[in-house]
């Protein structure tokens, strides 16, 4: 039951080529839709049935998002793919772009058809040079084969798709900052509402989805929404790409059904490196609160199970930490990232992320004060829920988790001006 959706061509030789993709039925779904002029509502209905939830991190139901666009509204509409993949620990979209770019292209064309868009953009992380080239090559092949451009396969439907290479800012993965960035402006999130479905790229109705979400579309339509839903579990339809990294023997990307036990995923990744003890897991990208190792071993990889454990599945970036890790150091590293990547627009995030980082850094460097622990919790609480975009929440999220589960390590740093892990 692995590699059934986005990575289903991984076993082929040079699976990124059009002919290889077509050898597995690629573009058949699109061809059928264009030939039969499938009503767009039917497509959206099928996506709804699949239970597909946005793979970019927030887990918003994709079919529902598409239905917010008023298809018959006059004027330009856009489909935008989010391949910015900046969250530390996440590297799954990169593999889709490298190994199965055509499935993403096909998914985007179908999405465009479903909402009546004639222009699309794929915003690719600035550092992804090879994936960018693969994607560009796929666009060229698709264009030559008549899947992109005007009057696709004589259906009267036009769609052009452009790749856009980002400039290296994490915040540009936030959907509205991404739109600003495509427009050539400073990458800063917009205040919402209005949401992109009403006021998106260049102020036009836009759907923006993660790479994995869009690349799942052709298979969902080919095999049917219920087929996809049944791969996973309740509230978590389908399979999911997990990027698992950290102290592992075989880190990498694995496409497995939602609801798979974490222990199985850990096994696929070769288990903890050097047979060391599993200390903790960050289950959904660096912004997800940490879960202690033992607790994690009992969990399954789906939205509900991880949420119940007080964390989130996010983009499916699983970071595995063994017992050599100092949690103060880990948190310092993460809070440095958010401090550095805040766009600086809103007060709590601009000021709060720097504050968090400096306090944690002080503790790590043996200059912590007893009151710092409560201060950290308090500052984090004053950021979360009060910012324009979720970067603020992402910065605050890890703090509470770390202090909840590993407070003793922080206390030790404060009391002894050195590290518990190193000392042990």
């Amino acid at each position: 039951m692995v590699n059934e959706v986005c990575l289903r061509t991984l076993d082929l030789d040079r699976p990124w080529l059009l002919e290889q993709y077509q050898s597995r039925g690629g573009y058949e779904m699109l061809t059928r839709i264009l030939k039969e002029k499938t009503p767009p509502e039917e497509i959206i209905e099928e996506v709804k049935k699949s239970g597909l939830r946005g793979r970019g991190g927030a887990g918003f139901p994709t079919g529902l998002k598409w239905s917010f666009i008023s298809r018959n509204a006059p004027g330009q509409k856009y489909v935008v793919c989010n391949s910015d993949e900046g969250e530390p620990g996440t590297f799954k979209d990169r593999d889709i772009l490298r190994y199965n770019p055509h499935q993403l292209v096909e998914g985007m064309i179908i999405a465009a058809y479903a909402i009546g868009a004639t222009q699309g953009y794929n915003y690719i992380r600035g550092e992804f040079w090879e994936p960018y080239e693969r994607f560009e090559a796929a666009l060229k092949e698709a264009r030559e084969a008549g899947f992109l451009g005007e009057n696709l396969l004589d259906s009267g439907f036009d769609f052009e798709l452009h790749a856009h290479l980002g400039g290296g800012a994490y915040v540009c993965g936030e959907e509205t900052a991404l739109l600003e960035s495509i427009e050539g402006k400073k990458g800063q999130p917009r205040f919402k509402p209005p949401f992109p479905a009403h006021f998106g790229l260049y102020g036009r109705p836009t759907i923006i989805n993660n790479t994995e979400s869009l690349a799942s579309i052709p298979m969902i339509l080919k095999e049917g929404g219920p087929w996809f839903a049944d791969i996973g579990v309740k509230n978590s339809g389908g399979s999911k790409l997990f990027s698992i990294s950290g102290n592992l023997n075989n880190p990498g990307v694995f496409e497995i059904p939602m609801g798979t036990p974490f222990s199985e995923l850990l096994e696929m990744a070769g288990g903890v490196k050097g047979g060391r003890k599993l200390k903790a897991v960050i289950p959904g990208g660096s912004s997800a609160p940490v879960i202690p190792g033992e607790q994690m071993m009992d969990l399954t990889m789906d939205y509900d199970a991880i949420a119940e454990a007080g964390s989130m599945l996010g983009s499916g970036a699983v970071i595995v930490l063994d017992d050599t890790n100092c949690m103060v150091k880990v948190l310092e590293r993460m809070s440095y990232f958010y401090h550095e990547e805040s766009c600086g627009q809103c007060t709590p995030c601009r000021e709060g992320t720097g504050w968090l980082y400096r306090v944690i850094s002080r503790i790590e460097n043996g200059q912590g004060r007893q009151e710092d622990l409560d201060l950290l919790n308090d500052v984090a609480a004053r950021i979360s829920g009060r910012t324009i975009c979720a970067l603020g929440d992402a910065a605050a999220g890890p703090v509470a988790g770390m202090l909840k589960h590993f407070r003793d390590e922080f206390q030790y740093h404060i009391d002894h001006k050195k590290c518990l892990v190193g000392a042990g």
Partner: protein
Amino acid sequence: MVTIEVNGRELKAKAGDMLIEVTDEAGIDIPRFCYHKKLSISASCRQCLVEVKNAPKPLPACATPVMEGMKVFTRSPLALAAQKGTMEFLLINHPLDCPICDQGGECELQDVAVACGSDASRFVEGKRVVPAKNIGPLIATEMTRCIHCTRCVRFGEEIAGIREMGATGRGEHMVIGTYIEKSIDSELSGNIIDLCPVGALTSKPFRFSARAWELTQVEGVAPHDSVGSNLHLHLRSNKVMRVAPKDNESINECWISDRDRFSYQGLYSDDRLTVPKIKQSGEWQDVTWEVALDMAAAGLQEIGEGEQIATLVSPSSTLEELYLAQKVTRGLGSNNIDYRLRQGDFRLDGAEPAFSWLGLKISEIENLNAALLVGSNTRKEQPILAHNLRKAAVSGAKVHFINPLQLELNYTAGQQLTTPAGMVQSLAAVAKALGATGEGAAAKVIDKAVADDDAKAIASALKDADKAAVMLGNIAAAHPDYSILCVLASVVANASGATFGFLAEAANSVGARLAGAMPHLLPGAKVAAEKGLDVMKLQKLPRKGYLLLGAEPGYDFWDAGLTRNALESADLVVALNTHTSPALEAAADIMLPIAAFAETSGTYVNTAGEWQSFRGAVKPLGEARPAWKVLRVLGNLLDQEDCEYTSSEQVRDELASLCEGVMPDNSVGKTESADLQSAVDGLIRIGDVPPYALDSLVRRASALQQTKDAAPAAICINAEEAKKAGLADCDSAVVTQDGREATLPVSIDANIPDGCVRISAGLAGTETLGAQFGEVTLEKA
């Protein structure tokens, strides 16, 4: 309409309005930094967080639309905790040294901190320091104090129409500034001083000279253009310390131009006239008022014949001053009074409307769908009107200009760049494209015109628009063929169904007409039985006696050289002025120091015909006296009747009763002469008046004089014409006009049309030249 509840109080509101608009309206205070009623919503400071029932998180009041039944708590524990949280964040990197900050005492951050800050800081890390930037002579920066509200950034984009301030860098490293170190040049730039909630942007001329609580605030009306922006004058010990806008939605909203904000510095220049002076054997002597006035009265009486007396008054004078000036003049048996010091063509006298005006309310400009501006550099001439025009253009109005200068605009507009004579032809072509034939002079020029594509585009823009206007600006008013431009513009307006209007030049140009400061019009726009001579004739046919009111020879007249000759040959020149200058000292025999802007009570009538009275805010400097009083005493000394006023209000009311029933009216009659006085064989001078050369006060406002718009006099010419004249950039050249010369630097400027050379008027170095628009020759010096 929806009903919401705020802190238990029921409020009616328009659905979709933001919560903060509704609470502001109801007088419920919600702290805010990024929100400003005239700017787009950024929702970024997070100071305005409030509790909304059933919302999981506190919501920003500035970006939360009201909905039926919404229950809001602005001071609940949740709301206060959120507001306090934001305040703490804002303060961690903000210096806590209010005593040495210029904003102290009028700082929004300070105010909110007092209301919802804490008394001790939990922040023990180092604070951010951001270097200050030099952004020009008007605005001082202390960017460490910036709280990143982006009001100044949005102001540039949305109001000034030029992106001058921006944010660079991310997160904590985000810095507000000009991308490259450069000055802020917008003519509205000073408004960011008011917008900046903290001490990051402050007034360079004012800073550290007074504390907000030491200042008293009185109201005033701006004296430098015909908008009549409402002002707040901030005073300390009888001195104007600074000027700020006073909200008036129908005139200036909450903005003022830099000219109106910083000109007060001119009040305290070294050459302020503070004692009456008389010239004896070529030497100036200080005298008492009594002596000076007696001499003036005796001198005027001595001239004997009324028609040998000419009164030339500045249109920046108050209504009361203008009314008394004409009263005294007419009392002397003369109708020789004129305010049109910068006009060169008087062929329309008699056919011109008496109470001419904008044709619209100022606030209606933004609703125009099309506009044609003839001879207007609106941005520099009437900055606030230009802002309204920009609003119209940004929301789709088609704006066209016919000008002898290519303008730097902050919106898209069609610009027809042509010579002064070409302007007449271009406008006639528009008339032709509209199928109009005109009468008299208009008929002659329209007949010869060719309706080209440009003309057709303008014509159809005007015709197709729901609301359109054709307006004449300052350049048109000084044009040698003003009379023809005026009739043509009126023909174009009539033929296209557009409103016809005048962008009056000075604060009281419209008032001067009502006050009867014209040779052919009496107060209340009544036609004089006996016409006097216009300002041009009064100089070409020199008079024996001149009375000058607020007019500086060399700078305030259409033909500086002509003025000098006329005044030099006179027996008596009595000058009522605020300042002295070498040119004035050379020309005058008696100088009477008068109260300047802010020192006298009075009234201005703006270009929209609105009367706005103001009181004297400070006592006149030295022995200076309000000019209305000086003129009244002069009237008394001349034994004139009915000159017993005890207040300026009395003067105003008398004039007001004479003006009763006089309605603004822009109907233009017919003229016959179609001779193009602007048609010259060689190069023609474009003698526009730069914004900071406009009147005695701004010419002495030191900070404004350091801005880009205060460039010194130069010969601006395009590369092609320069080549023909054998000149290169930065050369020095001799301009000759009417046999008089000046040596000025050459500046190559692509904005000047062929056949023209821009030598702006009102600037040092141009006092010897001739007409603002007239033939010149150039020669390398």
